[in-house]
Every structure is written in C-alpha cells, then in structure tokens.
C-alpha cells in the first residue's frame, strides 16, 4: 500500500482482469470440450422424397421440428381448400336445381301439365303426383340427384389428390433444406445407422386408407344424413316436403282443389239443364235423345272450359311468387346443408390430424430414438 490511490486500484483491477480472463478462457474451453464429448454424434439415415439423407442427431431434431411444422401448415391449408371446394361444389349443385325451376313451372302451366293435374285432382292422388313431378324436374332431370350421389366419391378423390401434392411438397422442401446439411458417414457407422422412413410415414399419414373411406361414409351418414342412405336421399327426403308445403305451391293446389269441388255440382246442374231444355223444345223419339245429349255436352264443355280458364289466370298470378319461393327454399336448404357438411369436414380434419401425428411418430419409435435433454449443448 505504498503507492498512490490509482495505482493500488489499478493493481487490483489488473489482478481481477487476469483472473477473470483466465477463468473465462478455461471455462469456455471446458464447456466446448464437454459439448464435443457429449454431442449427439449418432447418425441417422432418413428416407424422404425417395432420397436417402444422412443426418446427425442435432440436425435430425431440427429436421423433425421442420417436418412437424410443415405438415401442420399443409394440413391447415388442406382444411381451407377442402372447405372452399365443398362450398363451390354446393353452389354448383344447387345451381342445377334452381336452373330447373323455370322448366318445372313451364310444365306446370302447359296444357299437358294442367290436364294431368286435373286428372289426378279428380282421381284424388294429386299430392303424391305433384311430389313425384317436382322430384322429377328438380332432382332427376336437373342432374342434382346424380351430383349429390357422387359427392362422397368426389370429395374423397379430391382429398386424395390434395394429399398427394402436399406430401410431395413437404418432401421436396425438406430435401431442399437438409440435403446440403448431411453428415459424412464413416464406414463403421453406416452399417448400424438407424433408418427412418419419413416417406412411408407421410404416405400413411396423408393417404386415405380403406378404413378412412369407410369412416367417412359412415360419418357422413351419421352426421349429415341422419339415417338416410346417401346425401341425395337426404336432400330428397327433407327438401321435397318443404317445397311442397310452400305457401305459393299450396295456394295453387288449393285453387285446383276448389275447382274440382265446384266441378261436380255444376256438372249435375248442366246435365239437368240440358235435360229440361231437351224435353221442352225437342220432339220425342230418338232425335230428342240425340239433341239432349248434344246440349248436355255443350253445356258441360263450356262450363269446364270457362272455369278452367279462370283457374289458369288464378294460377298464372301465382307463378312469379311460386318461382321465387321455390328458389328461396332451395337456397335455404343449400345453406343448411353447407353448415352440416362443414361440421362433418371439421370432424374429419381433426381425425386426420390425429392420424397424421401418430404416423409421424412411428418412424422414431421404430428407430428407438429417445428425446434427450441437454444442459450442455443446444
């Protein structure tokens, strides 16, 4: 303690500096040595996108993280695309039906249509006949029936195609990133390298198996169809009664029924009128009979024709309203179906996500790779 204050302090500082530098150099050296000694230097061969990559443990861990990240990303994308595709498909399908509405109405107001309706109204089976006709025009002739029946196949093939492209994309991205980062295998190690087949895992994770398809079908029946056989049947069963009970359709039918009700007594009046006229004016004998029946037929015919014209105008007034209501109802059913299909797609997506995660764990279980924790090293 003989020197000036600054000198004493500097001496102490130099001492500390030297010691700390020594400690730091020694510590860093030791840490590095330990890290090298404990480094994950096992090698793994990874089969991805039909290419064999040799990776060391640390790189493999990154590879695995990337793989999980990419598949998750692709999966959510697939979810989105399937949703969009379903939406488009629904719009397309129901456009078929809405486009067929004018044709149906054309038939409805045409002569054959009117008379067959009259015929069935008189026969008492108007309701089932009309239901069948509506089903024929809106479902069978328009192609909606066929379109709906093929939904399962279409959605599965679409999914399949999407999955294949995604699998290829993931494989290509991974190879692109990790091919330059391969470790150099020594001869001794190559024989005992654990093999990871990522292709197989991705394949089984993405591809829809027979079991998947079965699950889809039963699932779609359970959630969308509620007991019915196919989507087409569901729509037919739920949609037709709703269409038939629409206000405009009902009032048109009521007009017709009223006409039929009026028809019977008027016919009777016409017949008796014809009869009296004949007895009053005509001579007796076979000529009277002929004259009477001619009179009856003219009376009845005029009555039917005039009343029927009245009916037609009544119905024609309803045509626009009817068309609008049918269209609106079709669109409403489309939205209901859309919600159900989305729900079903969601549950399907979740199932597939779980399946994919299981599939991706498999190669690691087979190669007996444990997840390790490192205090030293990263």
């Amino acid at each position, binding site marked *: *303690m003989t020197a000036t204050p600054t000198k004493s*302090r500097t001496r*102490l500082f130099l001492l*500390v500096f030297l010691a700390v530098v020594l400690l730091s150099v020694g*510590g860093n050296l030791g840490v590095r040595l330990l890290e090298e000694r404990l480094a994950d230097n096992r090698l793994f061969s990874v089969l991805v996108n039909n290419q064999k990559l040799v990776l060391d443990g640390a790189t493999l861990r990154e590879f695995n993280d990337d793989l999980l990240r990419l598949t998750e990303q692709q999966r959510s994308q697939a979810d989105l695309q399937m949703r969009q595709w379903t939406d488009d498909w629904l719009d397309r399908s129901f456009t078929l039906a809405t486009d067929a509405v004018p044709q149906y109405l054309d038939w409805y107001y045409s002569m054959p249509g009117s008379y067959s309706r009259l015929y069935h109204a008189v026969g008492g089976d108007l309701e089932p006949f009309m239901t069948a006709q509506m089903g024929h025009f809106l479902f069978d002739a328009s192609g909606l029936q066929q379109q709906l029946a093929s939904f399962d196949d279409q959605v599965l093939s679409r999914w399949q195609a999407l999955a294949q492209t995604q699998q290829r994309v993931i494989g290509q991205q991974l190879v692109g990133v990790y091919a330059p980062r391969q470790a150099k295998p020594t001869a001794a190690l190559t024989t005992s390298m654990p093999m990871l087949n990522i292709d197989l895992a991705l394949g089984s994770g993405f591809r829809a198996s027979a079991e998947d398809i079965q699950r889809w079908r039963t699932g779609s029946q359970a959630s969308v169809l509620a007991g019915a056989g196919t989507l087409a049947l569901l729509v037919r069963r739920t949609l037709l009664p709703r269409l038939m009970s629409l206000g405009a359709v009902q009032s048109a039918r009521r007009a017709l029924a009223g006409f039929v009700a009026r028809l019977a007594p008027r016919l009777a009046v016409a017949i008796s009128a014809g009869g009296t006229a004949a007895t009053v004016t005509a001579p007796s004998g076979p000529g009277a009979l002929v004259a009477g029946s001619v009179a009856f037929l003219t009376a009845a015919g005029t009555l039917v024709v005039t009343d029927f014209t009245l009916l037609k105008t009544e119905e024609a007034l309803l045509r626009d309203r009817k068309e609008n209501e049918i269209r609106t109802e079709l669109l409403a059913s489309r939205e209901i179906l859309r919600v159900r299909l989305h729900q079903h797609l969601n549950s399907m997506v979740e199932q597939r996500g779980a399946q994919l995660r299981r599939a991706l764990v498999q190669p690691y279980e087979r190669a007996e790779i444990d997840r390790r*924790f490192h*205090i030293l090293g990263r």
Partner: protein
Amino acid sequence: MILLLLPAISLLIWTQIPEPAQGWLFLPVWVASSWLILAGSLESARLRRRVWLEQYLLADSSWHRLLRGGVLMTVWHLLVAALLALFMLAKLLHVHAWIGLLLLAQAVVIGWLGRWLDARLQVHVRVAVRPAVARRMLVPLVMLPLLPGYLLIVLMLSQPAMVGIGWGEAVSLYLPEAQSAVGLLALCERSYLLLDLTLQWALQNALGSREDSGALAVLAWSLLLLSGAAFTWAWVRMLVGVGALVNRGEEA
C-alpha cells in the same frame, strides 16, 4: 449516490442489450463486477483478520506479517468473487422487472443508509477504520429489507403450473431457453434456470399429493433461500464494493 447507481444501472442495461453486443460486453461486465465484489470482500476480510490477530498475537510477533492476509487470501476471495459475479450475471439475465426495480431501489437505500451510519459512527469509531467498519455493518443492514422483499416478489410472481407432474416432465416442458450465446454464460444460465425450475417444482409439489412432499419442502425452501441469499448478497457486496474501491485509494 451516483457512484452507486452507475454500476447498478449499467448492469441492468446490459441485461437488456440484444445478443451479439451482450456477448462482447460480457467479459468487461464480469471483470468489473468481480472487481467491485473483490474490493469489498477483501477489505472486510482484512479487517476481520486484523481484529483476530490483535486479539491473540503479541505485539512484536513476526506472525503479524505472515497472517495479515496476502496472496492466498486474495486468490481465495478472487475466486469467490468471480463465481459470485458469474452467478449474479446469469441470474440477472432472467430476473423479472419487479426484482430489477427492487435492486435499483436498493442502490439508493445503500447510499442513504451508508451516509446515516457514517454520521452515527463519527463519535464512536476510530477515524482510520471508520469507513471499513461502516461498510461491514452496512451489508447485513441492507440485506435485512432486501431478502424479504426479494422472497416476497419471487413468491408472488406467476410460475408455470407443475403440480402433480414429475420433475423430468416439468423440465422437458417448461425449461426456458438460455439467452446468451457465450458458452460459459449460457451454461451458467441453463444451470441457474434448471435450479430455479427445480425449486419452483419442489415448492408447488411440497403440499401436493406426493409421498416425498416433506423432503420436497425442505429442498424447495433451502434452494429458494440459498439462491436468493447468494444473489442478493452478491448484489449488495458489489454496490458496497464501490465505496471500498474509492476508499481504498484514499487511505493508501
């Protein structure tokens, strides 16, 4: 006061600097904090030794020179100071803002308490050793509010919920990443984080349904108190060391 705030603030700023610069500044920061801790602890050790020697040795014994404290003492305290500083730095990188605030407030408290103590000792203690004695008494006095404050904040901060899960699982789920890229500091950080996580896990499970919850409670509280005490002690020692370093020049 400003001299006290300077190292405290610069250390807290260092913890917030982004990575490459933080790595470069690590060595200077470590040297500086070890220097401060060493100055303080060396002074108090010399004082203690002198009291002991004057108590037992004859005035003209040659052992006075031998036992006064030289290279061996310096090297020992140097080692302790460097390791304490390293521990403190690793922990500082992960302290919560509230604890940072508490530490900063402590610098002010130390300045204020030091002045008050100096005034009290003026009429009682010999001039030559007064600053050293004041600093000796300052350390426990400052630790008194600091340690309970530290414990209070640590126990009030939220922790990841680890009740009912095994230690290994807790580590693999919740161990945070080390912040530094410097190998030695990162190692210390990871060890500290592991220690912290262990004590949190033990603390949470001490009252749980585990069979060894009694032992866990002991482990948890001893780890909590030991690590907290070591950290706060290093901090106080460092701040007190500023005074010792300034004084060391003046007395020489």
